[in-house]
């Protein structure tokens, strides 16, 4: 191992789902203690902490966890970056270790979302008794629902539909079939919030949220946390053979935002920044998409999964529909995607998601994924999108 390589020494995720008796600190602590134990290290070994949480971003979750697990005085970076929050926390640890400021770093992400409804566009402001222009559009009344939609299921519905307009081949049923795949995958994942198989008829017949996304085609709000210990190659060489054997190489760690494109302030462009992140990540890792054994990508909605096949270059440009229809992305296909069940069934506790997907990939590379193990997996990719936008891509490789 090269001295300046980055490795995951320990990693853990809590079960996703309803945790009414545990607060954010409890969940985060469980994930952090799990990751530390997995890596055979303690809080005293951590030189930096990246702490991710979105909904309580002002609360200083990093220091709250330190106050339970160990106040060692090291720098904490509390980060909030929409649905890319967890990946951003991981990037903080990676950057600190890569720069040499720390030889080991901790990243964690946590969220409590059980029972949350719409996370954007969930309420409408009171109208004032007299029309008074305000805000950046000089609006005299709330515009959600009057000039397009702010709700995420609707925004991502349009993102999938736009792909259909550009390349053809999409339909309500096609998007529902993607959801059918992920719900089917979830039956093998004991950590998933929902692990029930759903038929195409059940999915299409469920409550419509924003056409073509019905409820099971939307990411599941739930509670959960995930944490990872990042270590430099130089430090890893000084650790035990057992630690070295279970370590997973971070072959690429990338975060991008969306460069300006003509329509990006009208409908968020989740494509360009994902493609940019993927290109950078493949270059860092020195691999191509065909080298991947599994992919965990950001299926916040079934309509989103389709476009990311293309954005991550898992298929030919414009070929995502044919690629999915070929069966490639099922767990027994040539490019298994979201074998965890994805955000639609595993769940999407926002701050945790960008580390939990890394845990999923790392667990397969270690050969420890149990019933859902992708046999012989050596390289995998984890992707998240935070609307606004931020994209995190991590490529992991099995230790040689």
């Amino acid at each position, binding site marked *: 191992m090269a001295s300046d390589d980055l490795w995951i020494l320990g990693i853990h995720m809590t079960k996703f789902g309803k945790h009414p008796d545990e607060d954010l600190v409890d969940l985060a602590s469980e994930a952090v203690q799990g990751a530390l134990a997995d890596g055979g290290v303690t809080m005293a070994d951590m030189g930096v902490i990246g702490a991710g949480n979105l909904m309580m971003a002002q609360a200083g979750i990093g220091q709250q966890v330190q106050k339970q697990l160990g106040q060692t005085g090291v720098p904490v970076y509390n980060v909030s970056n929409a649905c890319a929050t967890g990946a951003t926390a991981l990037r903080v640890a990676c950057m600190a270790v890569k720069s040499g400021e720390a030889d080991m770093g901790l990243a964690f992400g946590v969220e409590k979302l059980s029972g949350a409804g*719409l996370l954007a*566009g*969930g*309420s*409408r402001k009171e*109208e*004032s*008794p*007299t*029309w008074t*222009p305000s805000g*950046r*559009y*000089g*609006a*005299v*009344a709330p*515009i*959600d*629902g*009057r*000039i*397009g*939609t702010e*709700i995420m*299921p*609707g*925004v991502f*519905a*349009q*993102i999938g*539909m*736009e792909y*259909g*307009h550009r390349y053809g081949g999409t339909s*309500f049923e096609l998007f529902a079939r993607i959801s059918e795949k992920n719900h089917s995958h979830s039956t093998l994942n004991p950590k998933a919030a929902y692990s029930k198989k759903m038929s195409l008829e059940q999915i299409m017949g469920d*409550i*419509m*949220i*924003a*056409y*073509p*996304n019905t409820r099971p085609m939307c990411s599941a709000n739930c509670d959960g946390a995930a944490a990872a210990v990042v270590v430099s190659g130089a430090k890893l060489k000084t650790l035990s053979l057992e630690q070295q054997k279970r370590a997973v190489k971070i072959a690429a760690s990338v975060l991008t935002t969306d460069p*300006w494109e*003509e*329509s990006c*302030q*009208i*409908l968020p462009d989740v494509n360009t920044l994902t493609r940019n992140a993927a290109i950078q990540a493949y270059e860092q890792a020195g691999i191509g998409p065909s080298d991947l054994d599994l992919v965990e990508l950001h299926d916040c909605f079934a309509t989103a999964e389709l476009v990311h096949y293309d954005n991550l270059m898992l298929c030919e440009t414009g070929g995502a529909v044919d690629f999915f229809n070929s069966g490639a992305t099922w767990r027994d296909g040539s490019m298994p995607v979201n074998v965890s069940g994805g955000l639609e069934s595993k769940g999407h506790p926002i701050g945790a998601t960008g580390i939990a997907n890394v845990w999923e990939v790392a667990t397969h590379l270690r050969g420890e994924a149990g019933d859902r193990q992708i046999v012989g997996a050596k390289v995998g990719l984890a992707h998240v999108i935070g609307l606004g936008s931020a994209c995190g891509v991590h490529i992991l490789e099995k230790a040689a």
Partner: protein
Amino acid sequence: MAEQIPLVDYLVLGDEPHLVANQCTGCGARFFDRRNACASCGKTEFTKVGIDTTGEVRAFTIVSFAAPGVPVPYVAAMVDCGGTSVRGNLINVAPDPEHVSLGMKVRLATEVIGTDEQGTEAIGFGFEPVGG
């Protein structure tokens, strides 16, 4: 006739209602909001340009679940108006997949949003099918 005010400042009312954008004098990028600078090139000078009132639906969704007070279902869309993307609802059309389609030709239309305490009408906009 009651006094009228546009729902947003980029909607121009009158005999021929239309939208206006802030166009960057440097690179031509168009924006509908108040600007500090151009997100594409960073320049700070803009001119007002009128946007085509006809276009093509590039993406849509039919929202069935929304905040209390937001009538559903409604069709939210992105419309390509002569090369400028515009966000707006599709109106004067049944909000179902049988009546709304990708690539559908539409034109700008206005509608009354409501009337305030002083009797002023707020006028919003959407896009309706052409020749439908």
